[in-house]
């Protein structure tokens, strides 16, 4: 299903969140969305990481490999309830993604679907000093470059 991708699935999913109005590119005052590395500021932020996905083998008619890519979404917030609300909003929005066209840089992609593998997971506080709230949710993404 995926074929060649010029950007990682986490990067592509970030653009989906930005297009849906749930996140912004850094620098942003709130809900800046980063990839692979969680910045110290802003306090309310979203970070996406690539994780292992799922391999469904090949389709019989044409031998195309069917795979979905894993993404972990981490939501950090100063206020616990705000963070939960944001994480649930992201989860609900991902549930509705279907054949969404996104553009990352000069590359166009088609996100077929996003399947969540977990609900919003509450982690312990970030550190004993900052006490910022951390939540994660996991999903697998089906994506290919647009023709």
């Amino acid at each position, binding site marked *: 299903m995926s074929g060649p991708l010029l950007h990682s699935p986490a990067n592509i999913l970030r653009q989906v969140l930005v297009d849906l109005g749930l996140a912004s590119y850094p620098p942003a005052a709130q809900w800046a969305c980063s990839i692979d590395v969680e910045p110290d500021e802003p306090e309310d932020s979203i970070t996406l990481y690539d994780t*292992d996905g799922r391999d469904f083998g090949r*389709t019989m008619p*044409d031998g195309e490999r069917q795979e979905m890519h894993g993404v972990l979404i*981490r939501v950090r917030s100063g206020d616990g309830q705000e963070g939960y609300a944001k994480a649930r909003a992201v989860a609900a929005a991902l549930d509705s993604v279907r054949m969404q066209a996104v553009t990352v840089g000069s590359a166009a992609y088609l996100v077929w679907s996003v399947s969540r593998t977990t609900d919003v997971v509450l982690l*312990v506080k970030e550190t004993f000093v900052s006490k910022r709230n951390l939540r994660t949710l996991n999903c697998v993404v089906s994506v290919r470059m647009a023709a």
Partner: protein
Amino acid sequence: MAAKKSMVEVEGLGRVVKATRHWGRRHSDAEYTVGYSAPYAVYVHEDMEARHPRGGQAKFLEQPARTQGNALAAVCRQAVKAGLPLQEGLRLQAERLLQMANQLIPVDTGFLKRSGAVRRAR
């Protein structure tokens, strides 16, 4: 893009899938859970940026569960082939997953690793 037939539309496959599920339900209703009971297990599992000087990584349970599906299924298949009941095959499969996770789990005091267990869910 050309339309593809989904697998369930291929003639006869639906009957095979249905028969396999029926056989599975008849021979075993066992379900096993693999997990870690340490209170901070989820935090360690989900923290992708943590550095573990003694080795180990995040997603220590998810990674083998996703990437070693065929190997895990083979454990159950071989057990059943050897004459063991299906629920025993499932238990061995769960134990194997726990072994794989224990090879990836970060170790500091060893408490997290020791908290890993296989439990029969039903």
